[in-house]
């Protein structure tokens, strides 16, 4: 009896924090999503008007599609870059000191806020920015490229820049746990470098890839500020839909969109976890 009490007490602080800062706000959002709103006020109610509006509006589908598109393309790029970087660090760099040094180098951009990292792309990519000027001075192009900034390109570029490390870290971590003698055993069995990659490293790195995927997908799905800044408010995703509603004080509608987004992301994660068992990594 005494022991169970102590166990409960030990678990209590985290439980209280999670209840107060995670569970309660979500419950609140779910409740508010059923409330009603006029142009100037919101009132407690239990009606499905917010959801009806959301599911009947073609804008919702377009915006959700755009969000999935951002998530998918960002995922593909961060995975390709993240896997390559992690592979290089884990298998090509022999000395542990160099490994740690290079790994820390990857984290240096994170010493500044992500808004600053994002904004610093703007002078680079703009019409008269460094990229365009350089390309013109090399004679590659005659007129400045318009699609470099305030486009899907710049949004995805920023996403990839911001979130690749979230892919590198878990993949690197998983790769470091691969016993090096397995690679020798594969070589002994006549596997080429590419075969070792396909039959050994990728399967064994799957849990890390999955954790990185969850990070990147949830971050991109929930983002609104990157899309706003990098698209010059010309592109939309679900996050921006919610932030616009909030700006217009349409809390119930924002809450309904948030609930739908939350469910979408949870379903995506549930599907991903079906494929790979990440418990070993935790």
């Amino acid at each position, binding site marked *: 009896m005494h022991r169970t009490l102590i166990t409960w007490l030990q678990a209590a602080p985290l439980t209280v924090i999670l209840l107060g800062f995670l569970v309660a706000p979500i419950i609140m959002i779910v409740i508010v999503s059923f409330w009603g709103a006029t142009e100037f006020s919101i009132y407690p109610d239990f009606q499905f008007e917010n959801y009806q509006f959301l599911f009947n509006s073609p804008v919702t589908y377009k915006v959700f599609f755009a969000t999935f598109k951002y998530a998918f393309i960002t995922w593909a790029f961060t995975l390709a870059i993240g896997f390559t970087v992690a592979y290089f660090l884990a298998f090509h760099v022999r000395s542990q000191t160099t490994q740690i040094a290079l790994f820390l180098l990857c984290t240096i951009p994170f010493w500044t806020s992500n808004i600053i990292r994002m904004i610093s792309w703007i002078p680079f990519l703009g019409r008269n920015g460094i990229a365009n000027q350089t390309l013109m001075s090399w004679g590659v192009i005659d007129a400045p490229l318009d699609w470099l900034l305030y486009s899907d390109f710049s949004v995805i570029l920023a996403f990839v820049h911001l979130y690749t490390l979230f892919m590198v870290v878990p993949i690197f971590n998983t790769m470091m746990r691969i016993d090096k*003698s397995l690679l020798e*055993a594969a*070589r*002994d*069995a*006549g*596997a080429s470098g590419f075969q070792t990659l396909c039959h050994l490293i990728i399967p064994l790195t799957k849990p890390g890839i999955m954790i990185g995927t969850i990070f990147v997908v949830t971050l991109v799905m929930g983002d609104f500020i990157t899309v706003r800044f990098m698209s010059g408010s010309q592109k939309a995703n679900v996050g921006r839909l919610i932030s616009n509603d909030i700006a217009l004080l349409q809390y119930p509608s924002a809450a309904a969109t948030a609930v739908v987004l939350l469910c979408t992301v949870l379903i995506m994660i549930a599907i991903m976890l079906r494929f790979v068992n990440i418990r070993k990594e935790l």
Partner: protein
Amino acid sequence: MRTGYDLELVHLTKRYGDTVAVRDLNHIFNAGRYVCLLGPSGCGKSSTLRMIAGHESVSDGSIVLDGLDVSHLAPAKRGTAMMFQNYALFPHLSVRDNVAFSLRMKGVDKPTRYGQANELLELVDMNDYADRLPDQLSGGQQQRVALARALITKPKVLLLDEPLSALDPFLRVRMRAELKRIQRELGITFIHVTHGQDEALALADVMVVMNNAVIEQAGSARDVFNAPRTEFVARFMGGHNVISLDGSKVALRADAVTLADNGLPATVTGVEFQGAHVAMTATTEGGEEILALLPEETFYHSPKNPGDAVTLAWDEGRLHRLQA
């Protein structure tokens, strides 16, 4: 069954920067033998094995297998296969897929490679576990799988890197009998690296004792044990006393020492009951320690205790002169 695949090391050398791990080895391993490479840790035995396997580059010299210089070939092209110390089984593949891995890399179709894998699993008596994952096996079972996986490439030489060191003593004795049986059945050369002299004595047709990057002595297990060439070999093999006699070192087997009325006076320093024998250590007046393995019955006829004065004797013919 004998195959014609002799393995020859010619001036084989391995350097890491300034340190020499293997110095100018010259040796011919006759085909079809069970060879034990024996030595203390850091003596270069593992580097030698890994060079033969192709997992370590050769600094100098060459490795010739069946008349072909394989020193710079890829591991899988040499006709060798390696069994790793911690087995290195692929954790995400079933036992059968582990064994069939190299055939899969060659692009052999599934029924054929599974057929061959099953045959080898039969050989190591692991058929019932073919669908399990390596985690679900005991250490001994994992080792059998690792053996089957190494053998599926039909190697001319199988290289075993301390294969028994991860097993408990009871299993170790059983597995070494198993290894010997399989080697006899297949008739291929096994090169087994170990630091345990009892393991080497039990298994080896040919024993190669290494120390400080060179071969100290090579020969049949019995020859090496009975006629150690150097003081190092005598001490490392155990069961020998190394004593100075007339200015040179001689080896004397511990079981050749007896208690007698006339002989070398000494004081007992320790008595250890070992079952069939009693191991008695005594210090001579010259300060040399001598170990005597006395038959248990004889010893307890007139037992000695630490501190007792005894006289040690031996047959002169049992003394074996060592090279400096």
